[in-house]
């Protein structure tokens, strides 16, 4: 007890003691921060509550009746195609990530390490072209798919979607990866080449292992993209069996035949939780990846 008293008397911090004004400021800061926390958590809390509330009917309402149940989850799994949507989304996302990574790892390496003809011009061009919204090509994508689909029936709309996602991601990701590889010393390459490595070996044995963190970020972003996108699946995919999560879940709140808002909340919750965990664990890498791409350019 004695020890505590002593501590109270002595001011040991290396910061200046707070003035009254500072105290008020600090209190205000807390008020604002906590207010924003409530603003963020309340809607999300509502979502969680309604997902587990067995008393909710087809439409979500704010009421005091709460009865914990998995009813909406059951509905989601038995009455809707939720699992198919999950499968579709993961398939599309994984294919996109793999395709993007394969292509971009090569282009990023080539743009960083080689001075070839048309390099600067093409860099500038891809910078500008990527500002055009993907949406611009939507009419063409439709017809292109019907052309390719009639020649090769196995070419599904999902594959078209994968190609569009990967094609759209090439420019930006090449830029990010190029910036990262630029920061790797070229002396490493030179040493490897003197030891007899071919370009392919330098790529495979030297650059790729070092660039792994950035490759992971690119793969992650390419993987998350299809989870977040609503527009393209909605336009390109017509059959509910081929929907992604975004397009599928929207039918639960937009279409009168399948309307079930609590089930939407449940599905949204199930979708959001893994992604949120991923983001919380990897937030530093995700943010730094973005920043690197833009600052280094």
């Amino acid at each position, binding site marked *: 007890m004695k020890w505590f008293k002593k501590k109270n008397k002595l001011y040991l911090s290396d910061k200046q003691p707070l003035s009254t004004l500072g105290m008020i400021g600090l209190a205000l800061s807390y008020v604002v921060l906590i207010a924003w926390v409530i603003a963020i*958590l309340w809607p999300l809390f509502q979502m969680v509550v309604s997902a587990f509330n067995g008393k909710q009917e087809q439409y979500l309402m*704010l009421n005091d009746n709460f009865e914990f149940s998995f009813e909406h989850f059951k509905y989601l799994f038995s009455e809707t195609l939720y699992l198919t949507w999950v499968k579709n989304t993961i398939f599309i996302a994984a294919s996109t990530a793999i395709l993007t990574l394969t292509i971009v790892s090569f282009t990023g390496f080539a743009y960083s390490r080689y001075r070839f003809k048309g390099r600067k011009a093409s860099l500038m061009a891809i910078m500008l072209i990527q500002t055009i*919204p993907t949406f611009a090509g939507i009419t063409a994508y439709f017809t292109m798919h019907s*052309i390719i689909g009639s020649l090769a029936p196995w070419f599904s709309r999902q594959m078209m979607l994968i190609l569009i996602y*990967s094609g759209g991601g090439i420019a930006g990701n090449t830029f990010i990866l190029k910036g990262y590889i630029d920061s790797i010393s070229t002396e490493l390459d030179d040493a490897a080449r003197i030891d007899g490595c071919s370009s392919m070996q330098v790529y495979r044995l030297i650059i790729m292992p070092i660039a792994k963190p950035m490759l992971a970020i690119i793969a992650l972003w390419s993987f998350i993209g299809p989870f977040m996108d609503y527009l393209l699946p909605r336009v390109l995919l017509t059959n509910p069996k081929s929907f992604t999560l975004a397009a599928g879940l929207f039918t639960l709140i937009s279409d009168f035949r399948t309307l079930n808002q609590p089930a939407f909340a449940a599905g949204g919750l199930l979708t959001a939780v893994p992604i949120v965990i991923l983001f919380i664990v990897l937030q530093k890498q995700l943010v730094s990846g973005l*920043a690197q791409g833009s600052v280094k*350019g």
Partner: protein
Amino acid sequence: MEKKSIFLYDDIGNSYKRKNKYLLELYTLNAQMQEADSNGKKVIRNQIQKLKSNKKDHPYNIAHDTFKKEEKNFLSALNAKTKVYKSEMDTSGSRKLRALKTDLFKAKEKVDFYKKYVELSYDAELQYEQSKIEMTYLPEIIDLLIVTRQELNAAYEAKKKIDRDKEQIAKKNYSELKQIEQKRFLEGKVKLKEKKKSGLISEKALRNGIIELKAKRKETNTLNSYNIETKSVKELIKNKKYVLTKGIKLKLKILKSNLSDVRRKTPIETGKTVPFYSFLTILIPGIGQLLNKQYFKALLFSLVTLFIYFIAIPYALGYGNYQGDGISGLLSLAKDGKKIDKSLIFMIEGIVAVFLVLITIALYALSFNDVLKTEKNIIRGIRPRNWFETVSKIEQEGFPYMVSAPALLLTIFIVLVPITTAILLSFTGMDPQNQSKFGWVGIENYRLIALGQGLAGSVFWSILSWTLIWTVVATSLAIATGFFLAILANNDRIKGKTFFRVVYLLPWAVPAFITIMFFSIMFSPNGALTTVIYDLFNIQVQVKNDATLSRITLIFLQTWLGSSYVFLLSTGVLQAIPGDLYEAAQIDGATAWQKLKRITLPIVLFQTAPLLVGQYTFNFNNFSIIYLFNGGGPFNPSKYGNLAGSTDLLISYIYKLTMENQYQSIGAAITIVISMGLMLFAFIGFKNSKAFKEERL
């Protein structure tokens, strides 16, 4: 280094004397003529004429002709001799061995023959030198091959003869040794732990020490395991097999690069002065390379020829199209075509054809340049590259092109073709009445937009103004909020930073479509938020039915969503600002506000500027939030017509035009207009960026 030089040059500019006395004489006269006066010129011209008319009787040419004849005889004789040699060779060796021996035999014969002509011609010199190198290297390789083969066989024999009893004993010994080693490892570990306990070494040193001990244990175990015969023999076989394949390959590679070294240092002589092959064979890639005696390259380029004449050009002319008519389909747009013909398909196939033609032109240029360069080099004296050199050159310099090719193809077909389609579509009249067949209408669509006329164009300007207001206000508010929160949460005295950061991350991490849809539910007439507002203020708000309220709600919703990202970005930057900056400011008597204004703001803004600009363009095209929240509504036909709602942005308006109401061409025109705007925006931003200014591209 003019064409008719009396010297020959190699890649790096070393000069060599000509061995062709006739050409030397001719070019010397040429050189003299340029310096001589008019009288002298006449004399020299006569001399040249005389020399040229007596070309065949020139002593050098006669000698060269005999050389050629003898070489021919020699080569046919050599062929016969080689056959004999091959048949007499014992067939026990592997095919590789026999091939190498034959090569060595040939090289010996060649050295003897070409030695006599080294002074006469560079070709002979090259053959002589190369054969000499082969003679020095090949025996070594052959020996290695034979010896290793023998050793391998011996190892196989040893494997068969392994004594099982001895093997058992060895295994027993090994496991005993292993146990001893394990004991030693454990002892070492205990010792290290004791050291750690008594505070002699750190935690990290302990970990490293254990790793070191483990490595040592593994090493000793492996070493001991070789006392077991099966294991050691197995290892030996593996080793010898490696030498036989990879080792020999490496040696051969060294030989080849030595040979090509000689090739680089021995010039070539030709009477040709004009590189006419390249011009003659421009239309058929591959032939020029063949004439230059680059057979491998010729093969590669013949594939190009196949692509051009069997895929690209037929397609462009309309053969092999799905429905369209190649490039001409682009002009006609299926105007007088069959009933099932669709203009859009004609257009897209036409665009694909145009891109194929562009690729074709690029390939022609590539082939032409390649032949021209080789020919010019030959005239200067540089030998064309052989197969080995071509491959290594492609491996080095062609690498970026080869690995970018898939990206280029994907970009052309997934990005460029659709965008070109959109551009062309904006000049046509594709609307609900003209879905399958439509024609060119020039700039009609742009005129309608600019003047604000027509069903679709009339609301363009009012939607544009809302889009701009939305972009600026929603983004700025999100940025300001995120930044403000970051500064507050980054205060040293605030406790629970981790908690705040995790919570503030949530709006960014939860997929936006889920939150938007959920907010949409909550703002519906019986939704949670509507009820809460009613309970608190006793007002019945119908957000989704009121244009202004909808807009304000959307802006706040975007603030809720977007501030999270800005918060994370700014926090990252804030943490990286060195503390001594603030200390220095403190000492100089700066107030908190001054510190914020002069230190924090500039640093954060500078570092995150490109991303913040990206936020503006993102919101300009933020389709999801508008469409998912209220489908662009509420609708107000008197102001926004039947197609758009009062919260529609241009992007969702385009969506409604193209996907829901089939006004594709005017939708395309609006797309092009906003794309141009965005591109300009991006270009300005990009030009001012650090990377571009520092020429680090």
